[in-house]
């Protein structure tokens, strides 16, 4: 728990909170980008270079951009008249708190059951690659299949309807 961790955690939390609190939708999208960036920096501070840069590439470079695109194409960028909170915000809060407490309990319990490793293992990108196409090749292929199916589905949804006026 170094000062760096606290700064990054504060940045990520502030980004996340701003995402749900800000009224303009595009500002919320930009705030979620900040939260993604904070997460990436957290990974980097844990020496997980591959995960950190993949987080930036995928979440800031693609997901955040797709979010703002969707907002602009659906004309949702106008200010909402009423507040941004849905009527069911209280039950949402309870649900979120319950999930958080279960996860925190699980994480805190598992810390004791793991063998105490003092030396941080050096994981290079080479090792990650070998593991991905070696031991974890089946999950990788399943994810690839899922993504391909999703892409084909998106193309079918976006396709011209036959017979109609073009």
């Amino acid at each position, binding site marked *: 728990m170094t000062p760096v961790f606290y700064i990054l955690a504060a940045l990520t939390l502030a980004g996340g909170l701003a995402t749900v609190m800000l009224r303009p939708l595009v500002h919320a999208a930009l705030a979620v980008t900040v939260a993604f960036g904070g997460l990436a920096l957290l990974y980097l501070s844990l020496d997980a*270079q591959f995960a950190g840069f993949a987080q930036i590439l995928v979440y800031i470079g693609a997901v955040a951009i797709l979010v703002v695109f969707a907002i602009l194409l659906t004309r949702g960028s106008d200010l909402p008249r009423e507040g941004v909170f849905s009527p069911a915000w209280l039950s949402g809060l309870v649900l979120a708190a319950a999930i958080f407490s279960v996860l925190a309990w699980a994480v805190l319990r598992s810390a004791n059951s793991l063998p105490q490793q003092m030396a941080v293992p050096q994981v290079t990108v080479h090792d990650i690659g070998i593991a991905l196409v070696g031991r974890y090749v089946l999950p990788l292929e399943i994810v690839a299949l899922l993504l391909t199916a999703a892409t084909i589905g998106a193309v079918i949804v976006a396709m011209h309807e036959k017979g109609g006026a073009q």
Partner: protein
Amino acid sequence: MIDQADQVFVLLQHWLVSFLPAGLQQFAAVLLSVIAIVCVFPGLFALTTVFERKGLARIQNRIGPNRVGPLGILQPIADGIKSLTKEDVVPTSANAGVHFLAPLGLVVAVFMGFAVLPMGRNMVLVDMDCGLLFFFAMSASTEVSVFMAGWSSRNKYSLLGAMRAVAQMISYEVVLLLSSVSVVMIGGSLSLTKIVAAQDQYTGIFPHWYIFTPWGLAGFIMYAIAATAETNRSPFDLPEGESELVAGYHTEYSGFKFALFFLGEYLAMFSISGLGATLFLGGWSAPLSILNWVPSWIWFFSKLMLSIFVFIWMRGTLPRLRQDQLMNFAWKFVLPLTLLNLMVTALWRFMGEGIARWIVCSAILLVAYVVMGRVEMKSEHFGPRSYRYAD
């Protein structure tokens, strides 16, 4: 002597750092390298603006800038002073915070990319294990800045320009990444220094650059197409098509903020050319083994400037594409060819040494290129175009 000329900047850095106490040395070394990058590339940018205006003028049978200094060589200084002293106008309805942050974010993200480029033997700021991934992560985060600039200006031209820019950058980023993956497959590393080291070998006097293989040539051509589109250069300069969108996403920027966008655009061009040279053209290695006495950084920067020259040449020669042509070209022609190139690379890797793999790989790529081109052209209707949404 030759070694010293090659390592002159590294030695200079060590010499300067040696004056400091031991605790500060590492920090000072990094700081010096950062200062060097932050000075050299904007300097190169100033030179390139004059070079580009002169070159375009020659192509268009004009003289170009010739008033400031001998042969107009001091033009960038005049431009810089002009943009520094200009009034910084922010539209009243603009979103001031986002409007202010956009150019800063763009320039910072673009500068970060230079951190992993090996600019000469032992001349790299951070020799990262996944340097290529870092580079692409940084270039992907420039898209957010472009969008921020276009959206915060509250101007339909800015917004349209930003939408075009982001759509184009996302589409061509796929091609850019996939064409680089084939280099990673053969080089076996994401570290750019290792990729250059793998190409710094010679058979006779000829180098082992990846461009001199069938998959490397195809990959390089597709990389160059995608790089041109990523940096919004002609013929893919729709995001700032002057005749239709005023100036694209930086329409509402004036003074030094505009200059920052301009700088960011050229720096992106430098960094993506540098990466192309690193991946396919052997980085800092000499083109012939007998030319190894020339310092390695001279080779890197010559390759960089050569590709900048090609960018300028294309801008002076080619007409601008239409938006649907741009997208169709990316998704229906270049992307399938890149995927095929990945398979050809794998084939090249597993066929072993010999003439057979040259013939088989070249044949597959050539046949695919010709057949796909023919099929695409056949389905292309040359007639009045119907607009789906505008009718």
